[in-house]
C-alpha cells in the first residue's frame, strides 16, 4: 500500500512542489525503522521471435535464470535525532532558602528511527540563562529523575531512574532535576543549571527495561551491510544535546530598627529624666524581600535601670502593633497565650501562640513603653 496524501485536494504537477512535499515529510517523519531491510527486484519480460519467454528476475550480481534472482537490499541504519529543551520557558521556578527537593523539568523528544536510551548529566551552569547571570553559589545535591525511565507514570519521585530508558520513536519524556537550596542563598540569586543528554544504545530492547546502555558512537565506514550502523542526525551531529534552566531565589530580607522617644516627662521639653516615659519603636522591615518572613519573634532585654510600663495602651494592652492596629499582653510565661511574655526582664513578642508574618514588601512596627524610675 502506498500512502497517498489524503484530503488536501492539492495536485503536485511541478517537480519543485513535489520536492517541497518530500522535504516536508523528511523533516516531520521519523522514517523507516532502523534495521528494516529494504528490498528491490526488477522483473524483465521479453519475447524471442514472437514467443513470450519466462520473465527473468534481477539479482545483485546478475541473473539469467528465471526464479533464480535475489532482491537487491540495503539495511536501514539508525539516524540518531533528538531534541532537549527546558520545559517551563522563562517562567522561573521560585524557591526559598532551605527548601529541599526543589524541581525543574526538561523535555526530550526522540526523533530517531529507533528506540533509544539516553544518559543524562546535570551541572551548575556558570553562564547566563534567560538573561540572568548565575549567582555563583550553586544549589546542593542535583539529582536527575525520569518516571520509569520513559515518563510513563508522570512526575517521578526520587526513587525513579536517573536516565531515559527505552524511549520509543516520536515519544516525549519529561526529565526532572531536583536540588536543595542552601540556607545561605540570597534573595534575587539565580542558580543556573545545564542538563546534557547523550544518545545511548538500546541493545536491551523493550523487553529488558531498567538498564542504561553504552553511549552510541557514529559508525566509521566502511560499514557492514548486515549491521545497523549509527548516523548522528541531531543538532551538531554529535549525539549530544544540552539545555539550560534556572531557579530564582526569593527570600525575606529583614531590616530591624529600634528607636526611642520620650513621650512624657515631669519637666517641659520631654527630657529623659526620672519619671519620664520612653516609648520604644521596633520596625521589622521586609520591603526589600520577595518572600514572606514567617514565625517572626522579637526578643528584647529591658534594661534593669528602667521599668516596663504595664498596660501602656489600655487594659491588657502592653504592646502595640502597627501603631495600635492590635495589642498584646506581656505577662509571665505568656499565661494568657496571646503571644507576648515578659520574664526576668526579657520581653518576647511572637511565639508558638502568635505566628507573626511580615509579608514580602511590607513592614511591621512594635511599640512598648518604659518608665525611668525616680529612685
Amino acid at each position: 500500500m502506498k500512502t497517498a496524501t489524503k484530503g488536501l485536494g492539492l495536485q503536485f504537477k511541478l517537480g519543485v512542489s513535489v520536492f517541497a512535499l518530500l522535504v516536508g515529510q523528511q523533516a516531520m517523519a521519523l522514517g523507516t525503522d532502523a534495521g528494516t531491510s529494504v528490498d528491490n527486484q526488477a522483473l524483465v519480460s521479453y519475447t524471442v521471435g514472437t514467443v513470450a519467454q519466462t520473465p527473468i528476475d534481477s539479482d545483485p550480481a546478475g541473473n539469467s535464470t528465471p526464479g533464480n534472482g535475489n532482491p537487491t537490499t540495503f539495511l536501514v541504519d539508525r539516524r540518531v535525532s533528538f531534541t532537549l529543551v527546558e520545559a517551563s520557558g522563562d517562567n522561573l521556578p521560585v524557591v526559598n532558602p532551605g527548601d529541599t527537593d526543589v524541581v525543574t523539568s526538561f523535555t526530550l523528544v526522540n526523533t530517531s528511527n529507533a528506540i533509544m536510551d539516553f544518559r543524562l548529566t546535570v551541572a551548575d551552569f556558570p553562564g547566563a540563562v534567560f538573561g540572568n547571570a548565575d549567582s555563583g553559589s550553586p544549589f546542593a545535591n542535583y539529582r536527575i529523575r525520569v518516571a520509569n525511565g520513559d515518563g510513563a507514570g508522570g512526575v517521578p519521585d526520587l526513587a525513579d531512574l536517573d536516565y531515559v530508558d527505552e524511549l520509543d520513536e516520536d515519544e516525549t519524556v519529561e526529565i526532572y532535576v531536583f536540588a536543595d537550596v542552601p540556607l545561605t542563598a540570597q534573595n534575587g540569586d539565580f542558580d543556573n543549571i545545564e542538563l546534557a543528554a547523550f544518545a545511548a544504545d538500546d541493545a536491551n530492547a523493550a523487553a529488558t527495561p531498567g538498564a542504561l546502555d553504552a553511549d552510541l558512537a557514529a559508525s566509521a565506514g566502511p560499514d557492514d551491510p548486515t549491521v545497523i550502523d549509527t548516523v548522528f542526525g541531531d543538532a551538531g551531529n554529535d549525539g549530544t544535546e544540552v539545555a539550560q534552566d534556572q531557579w530564582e531565589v526569593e527570600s525575606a530580607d529583614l531590616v530591624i530598627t529600634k528607636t526611642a522617644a520620650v513621650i512624657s516627662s515631669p519637666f517641659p521639653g520631654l527630657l529623659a529624666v526620672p519619671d519620664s516615659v520612653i516609648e520604644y519603636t521596633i520596625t521589622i522591615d521586609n520591603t526589600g524581600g520577595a518572600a514572606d518572613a514567617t514565625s517572626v519573634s522579637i526578643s528584647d532585654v529591658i534594661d534593669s535601670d528602667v521599668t516596663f510600663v504595664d498596660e501602656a495602651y489600655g487594659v491588657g494592652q502592653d504592646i502595640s502593633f502597627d501603631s495600635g492596629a492590635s495589642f498584646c499582653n506581656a505577662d509571665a510565661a505568656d499565661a494568657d497565650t496571646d503571644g507576648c511574655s515578659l520574664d526576668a526582664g526579657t520581653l518576647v513578642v511572637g511565639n508558638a501562640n502568635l505566628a507573626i508574618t511580615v509579608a514580602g514588601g511590607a513592614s511591621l512596627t512594635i511599640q512598648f513603653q518604659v518608665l525611668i524610675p525616680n529612685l
Partner: protein
Amino acid sequence: MKKMIGAILLTLSVSALAQEQGHLSVQTTVQKETVVMNENGEQETTLVPAETVVPGERVIYTITFENVSDQPAGDVVITNPISDNLIYVDGSAFGPGTDIEFSVDGGQSFAAANELTVDEDGASRAATVDDFTHIRWVMQNELAVGAQGTARFTAQLK
C-alpha cells in the same frame, strides 16, 4: 538453524536447475547519493554503495540487462515494484530507448506519469509520486544479441 538454511538453499538450487537459463541477464544494484567537496571546494554529488542509509536519504537503483543469447529479444519490459519504505523521486526514472510508465494499482495497469489518476473520496485527482507502486521501462526496439540496456530510478527512504 544453519542446517535449515542449508536445506532451503539446496531446494532453491534444485528448482533453479529445473529452470532453463533464459536469454537475458538482469542485475540490480543500489547506490546512495552523497555530497562531497571536490578539489575546488565545490559541493559535488557522487554515488557510493548504499550501505549506511538513513531516513530521508536517496538511493539510486540501476537495472542492467544484457542479451546473453544468440537471438534478439523483443518486447523487453522491465517492471520494478517500489518498496513501501521508499518514495519515488519525481522525474528520476531513466532508460535510453525506453518508454517509462508507472502504476498506481499494484502493477495491474501502467501509464505515463502525467496520465495517471487516483480516485479519492469519490473524486479523481492526478497521481503523485506517493501513489506510484511500480515503474516499468518498455523498450522501443528489440535488444540485439550481446546488447546491453540500462534502467535507473531514484527513491527516497521514508
